[in-house]
């Protein structure tokens, strides 16, 4: 039992805790940038964390007609998302958790969370909830295959669906310009926008029935349940950020995990995430929310891009 392995386990156990803190901050950071871009002071970066604390302290109110599933859902959503983020290399390449859950399982876990989220939306029996669930499932039905295609592109060139192996492969390959990666990256970004409910697919800031998707589902939640749901959503955002940052730009991840390297890697990854967040904020301020039925076209574009990525991978780069 050399310290190498203990290091890996340490990384695996610490990673979710770090992300649990980092995710709200990332959201706060995005909000901050956005309000800056809109010439507002905006809330502090810490604000989301404060909100969570407040929500946890509040007493939840559950609709009379809600079934047990309504109360179980937040935990399932939270747990699955947490597990998902645990299986993405944050700072160290080699994570034991990646052998438990490869990239397909990752998508599956997100799907599990979404399944319960949508069910919870329909449980109380409000029109909003059903509407949100329907839209959410539509968006995800189009987004999920695109995402799988994107990661398949990486998997096919790395000959593995294990995230660590993929990262390692990309790290070894160094800077290679692959058309497939370009397509996959673009596609993944579009998917990330759709899946995390950002503009132009969804608008996290409003409760307008015409626009909202994600918010409509958690409308009936309050107190700790709401907190868990929100937290899960923030984790999801962070997760996509991580995927984009660490799969396509894996530079700086720790080969062999020692506290020092770990912190260095963490700093680098944090940097990447902040950058991504800023970009997202810029995008959101410049773009406008689009009608629900333009969302499919948006996602078809994503699907098309990723499929192109995959095809160009198997056709052009089979040698590489």
């Amino acid at each position: 039992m050399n310290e190498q392995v203990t290091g890996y386990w340490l990384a695996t156990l610490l990673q979710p805790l770090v992300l649990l803190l980092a995710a709200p901050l990332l959201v706060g950071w995005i909000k901050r940038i956005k309000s800056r871009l809109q010439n507002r002071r905006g809330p502090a970066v810490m604000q989301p964390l404060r909100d969570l604390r407040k929500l946890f302290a509040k007493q939840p109110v559950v609709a009379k007609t809600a079934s047990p599933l309504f109360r179980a859902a937040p935990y399932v959503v939270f747990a699955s998302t947490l597990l998902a983020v645990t299986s993405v290399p944050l700072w160290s390449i080699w994570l034991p958790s990646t052998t438990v859950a490869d990239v397909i399982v990752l998508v599956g876990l997100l799907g599990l969370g979404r399944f319960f989220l949508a069910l919870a939306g329909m449980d109380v029996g409000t029109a909003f909830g059903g509407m949100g669930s329907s839209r959410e499932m539509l968006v995800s039905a189009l987004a999920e295959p695109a995402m799988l295609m994107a990661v398949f592109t990486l998997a096919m060139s790395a000959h593995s669906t294990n995230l660590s192996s993929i990262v390692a492969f990309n790290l070894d390959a160094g800077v290679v310009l692959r058309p497939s990666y370009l397509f996959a990256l673009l596609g993944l970004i579009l998917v990330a926008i759709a899946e995390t409910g950002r503009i132009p697919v969804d608008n996290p800031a409003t409760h307008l029935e015409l626009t909202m998707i994600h918010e409509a589902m958690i409308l009936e939640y309050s107190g700790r349940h709401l907190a868990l749901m929100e937290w899960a959503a923030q984790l999801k955002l962070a997760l996509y950020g991580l995927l984009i940052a660490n799969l396509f730009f894996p530079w700086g991840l720790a080969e062999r995990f020692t506290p020092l390297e770990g912190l260095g890697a963490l700093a680098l990854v944090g940097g990447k995430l902040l950058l991504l967040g800023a970009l997202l904020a810029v995008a959101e301020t410049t773009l406008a929310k689009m009608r629900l039925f333009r969302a499919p076209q948006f996602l078809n574009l994503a699907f098309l891009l990723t499929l192109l990525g995959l095809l160009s991978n198997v056709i052009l780069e089979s040698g590489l």
Partner: protein
Amino acid sequence: MSIAPLTLPGMAILASLASALIALGSGRAPWLMRGLCLPLLALAGVLAAGAGVGVLNTGGAALTSLPLGLPGHPWMIALDRLSGLFMLLIGLVVIAVSVYAPGYLREYEHGEDSLPALGFFSGVFIAAMMAVVLAADAFGFMVCWELMSLSSYFLVAFQHQHSANRRAAFLYLLMAHIGGLSILLGYAVLASHGGGLGFEAMRDAALTPAWATLAFALAFLGFGMKAGLVPVHAWLPEAHPVAPSHISALMSGVMLKVAVYGFVRFCFDLLGNIQTSWGVTVLVVGAVSALLGVLLALMQTDLKRMLAYSSVENVGIIFIGLGLSMVFAASGAPTLAALALVAALFHSLNHALFKGLMFLGAGSVIHATHQRNMEQLGGLLRRMPWTGLFVLFGALALSSLPPLNGFASEWLTFQAALQAWSLHNGLLRSLIPITAAMLALTGALAAACFVRAYGISFLGLARGKSARKARETGWGMRAALGLLAVLCLLLGVLPTPVIQWIEGIPRELLGTGLPHATQHGWLWLTPVSPATASYAPLWLALGLALAWGLTALLLRRGAVRKITRGNAWDCGFGTRNARTQYTATAFSQPFGRVFGMLFQVDAGLREDEGGGTPRYLSQVSDHFWGWLYAPVARATLLGGRLASHLQSGHLRHYLGWTLATLLLLLWMIS
């Protein structure tokens, strides 16, 4: 144990036949059904499962001939690993069904539908399915196959007072007959080249590629028709829903798998040296079936019809696996072929379990509410908690979500597809990822479909009076659901032992198994190699449980543990009742808009009969009716009309025909 390997399955068949015969008496004494027939069926199931497990463990084929069949061509029965897997599959579902049936059949005991017919044909049906799996010669296989179709036809037509059921039954038997005949011809090709109706003789039949392709085409048509592949699927969504639910469970859960068995037996075992073009055909057809099946399922408002379409989808997924396996086998990658085959077979087993679970669950819903239309259901989870819980498991598995078994088999299929890079043919390298994409899309849509189904019928507020008065079913029915649900979870969390069993089948058929599949022990599933991909569902499940538990624990410690119940907020809109909920139609409407080109949606305001308030209704029909079935029917009727013109009634015309024939023949011979 020292009993001959074929004793158990033989006893299983005899037991179900006995139950069939005893059921004939249940007209006068209904208790016979509950007291004797169904227990016998359960026994048959146990025996079959036992036989399957036994041969899967030990392997090795046993072959004997029966004193039946044609002169010089006795019936042969054999039990090898492939048969064993399907015996196990049949056995498990049959056990569940026979535990379920007593409660479910109670209301038939006093109805006008004849209980004896139901019991008799159920027994024959089950026996025939087991016998098909055991048969080792073409004649025996075909006899049992057609018996299976015929008996299930009587079960579909069981409640024959509804003309829709009769129509469904007719369509079903017609297509089953056509399929059966084309399978028969497929066997005939092998028999004519192999010299003999026995499988042994067929295995070493030397066929030219053309003949082999013909045989494959016939078999694919026949078995595909039974399995419900697009475009020959039309009978399935008609026939499966109208049978009594436990029979639907058997038909969807087991009979389709028997078709899969037949296809595997025919193509991989008897036909051998597979060609790439076959694999591609199977792959494409499978992918199309999967996608179209799930989309149509998403559009249904009838619970059982929805499940039937989802069977089309899952059969499609299975055939994607088979197609991959054939492609790999044809392009000289036996290990990958084995992987894909294992994925397909594993998914067959899984689908049998969760589709059986879902149909039984639907049966419970119907039993409690006498309502198949989702739009009339709602809020059942609170009235039937156990049923609701078990069905939730089924829904998760059908949406192929971890950590359940549906995900495990789909994961394997993906792993197989992702090995496409190792092929040399660029076309295949690009085709396979596309099918993988369609598979991904299918999975996501399936999730949507079952969120809709479960959310509409089990959550929310009751939409109809019957749903408002629903009550939880008896213990037997719940126990059956529970059994299947637990099996789904078990196979999902611990797939490795089952995979170890299944991978013996490709070792028998393709000559190579999955050497690395389980080298990391019973926890880790590493189909190709640990470096390529690994999946530890048990850890995953534990992780989930841990995360859930910890969160819950921490929050319990938190300030407020008490939950107050209040009215739903609903953005402050006050008037919330069952009618303001989202309906199933509303839920699937955007999907219909996005994927509208793949099927016909005719929606609009309809006066419901009685001329009450107009409602927004939407029917969905798939294009193939117009493209394939209607023209054939029209052509047949036209032919009939022409033929009836011959019978003009004028004696002189008839004599004229005689003279003409005579002269024509005389002219021909000279």
